[in-house]
């Protein structure tokens, strides 16, 4: 059975928080508060994370992997290249010298870390994303939006909760 989206706009974070709490405390058939609820806000808002509960972020694992791989790759690529190109002997220096290779390894460490972190960000945040079915440009201005997804039967209950908390505007996905 297909699910339908409902978007409600609120003018302040406090109201949005109350709504989320109420959604959490009421059990509505065909609506799972953990999976079907998305909060959209114009700024990075630590309280949103608090009232939504702990949700894990995995970007830092990408960072760790990227940095380590960058460093290792850097060192071995450079040393390997030097070892395969021993005609390039420098008087007074070994063919594989450590100090310069460490400098370059350091740079590659950072390069790998940054690139893979950004990649991890795109993956974890699901970007580039298809635009969600309901969106209001006032989210990018100053409103906070709650997007829910539910079975057709739950829509009216959700709508009632939104209205109770003075939603400024409620958008509903057109039925199929």
């Amino acid at each position, binding site marked *: 059975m297909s699910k339908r989206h409902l978007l409600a706009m609120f003018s302040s974070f406090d109201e949005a928080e109350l709504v989320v709490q109420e959604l959490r405390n009421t059990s509505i058939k065909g609506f799972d508060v953990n999976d079907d609820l998305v909060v959209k806000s114009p700024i990075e808002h630590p309280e949103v994370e608090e009232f939504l509960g702990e949700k894990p972020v995995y970007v830092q694992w990408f960072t760790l992997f990227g940095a380590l791989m960058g460093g290792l790759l850097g060192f071995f690529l450079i040393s390997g*290249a030097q070892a395969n190109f021993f005609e390039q002997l420098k008087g007074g220096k070994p063919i594989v010298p450590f100090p310069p*290779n460490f400098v370059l390894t350091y740079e*590659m460490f950072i390069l790998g870390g940054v690139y893979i972190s950004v990649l991890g960000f795109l993956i974890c945040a699901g970007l580039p994303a298809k635009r969600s079915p309901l969106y209001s440009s006032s989210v990018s201005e100053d409103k906070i939006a709650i997007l829910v997804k539910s079975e057709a039967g739950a829509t009216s209950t959700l709508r009632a909760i939104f209205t109770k908390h003075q939603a400024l505007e409620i958008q509903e996905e057109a039925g199929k």
Partner: protein
Amino acid sequence: MKDIREDIAWAKINRDVLVSLENPRKLYWVIVFGALSLFSVGLGCEIYQYQVGMGVANLNNPNVWGLYIATFIFWIGMSHSGTLLSAILHLMHADWRKPIYRFAEAMTTFSLMTAGLFVMVHIGRLWQFYYALPYPNDRGTWPNFQSPLLWDAMAIFTYLSSSVLFLYVGMIPDLAICRDNLHKGWRKKLYTLLALGWEGTDRQWRNFRVTYLTIACFLIPLAVSVHSIVASDFAMSQQPGWHVTSFPPYFVAGALYSGCAAIITLFIILRYVFRFEDYMTKSILKKTVRLTFAIAMVWTYLNAVEFAAVWYGHDMDAKAVLIQKATGPFAPFWWGMVFCGSVVPLMLAFKRFQTNIPVLFAVSLLLNLGMWLERWMIVAPTFSHGYYPWVWDNDQWPSLIQWGMVMGSFGWFTLLFMVFCKVFPSVSMYEVKEMVYHRSLHLKKNETAGQGAH
């Protein structure tokens, strides 16, 4: 005096910044035109030099490096304060950086691009530039990884690409605002593409916060390493006056210094051109000025340390170079550097100048003049007074071609910067909102606490 008004409406922030994308003051076009003409001059000089040979720059043996390398260091240095504002101050939770970090970060990117140009115009065979890149080829040749120039290339590549990513990632929420608010046209398509479908969902913000913080943590050691490596071009060499242990920290301090001075200059220009008086407030300017003053004093100290180390070090060749700097043909420029770099910033210590915009504009330009002279005084005197007596007093005045390209680089930088500020929001809208939000929360908390006391 407040950093920013708490009662400023969020919708107004959007409006004010978005208007800068469409409707700047007339001065904007004057600056763009000026930059374009300067850049054309530089481009003409490069075409001539490319055709005829490096000799037209009036370089010779031993003066093989001229203004190109000096100006290269200058631009690399200027890039560092963008990272200072965006990364270091971000980690230190100094939220006054928020309205001004975006353009500082853009400055980082574009001054690195300008510095990259000088590597190009400096080398004798530009058409063989790719030999310096480590790419696998069937001849099995590789660049020389021992050369500090190669570290430079690697460091600059890392820094440039990381800065671009940092700038871009930090701009995604603002690009979404642009996408939502601008009329149809190529710009809307551009913003739609670049915003990657950002909608400000909790998941996006959560990952965004961690990523931004992570890259900021990487950028700080990276920025330090970049200018240390540029310093290594000199410190790793054997020449008197260059082979100095304290060069890396000295270069980093100099980099932050010239960058901060440039931020003041651009702050004043943007504030006027894009009517950002509500966001780039005098209070923020004052904080930047104080930061610049502190860094100026650090730089002065490290400069003095370097001279003292040479003076008492009994390295007679290095000492001879130092004496020649202060008394030889370069003396006017060297003392000019000391004056602009160490004496002029003392003005910034006075409260009455800290918010005086015309004075600050002049001072910031003088500071950067001093820092440019510093770089020239690092590069040139060692060539005319090195170890080998045969090359002593062999002074070579840079030709107009060199000066033309130095001017051209300022044009190129200004052009890129001004185009960026017109195409992308140069004030971070979402972060200004955060700043306003947190300050108003703070204010509210104080009020309720005050009421409770009654």
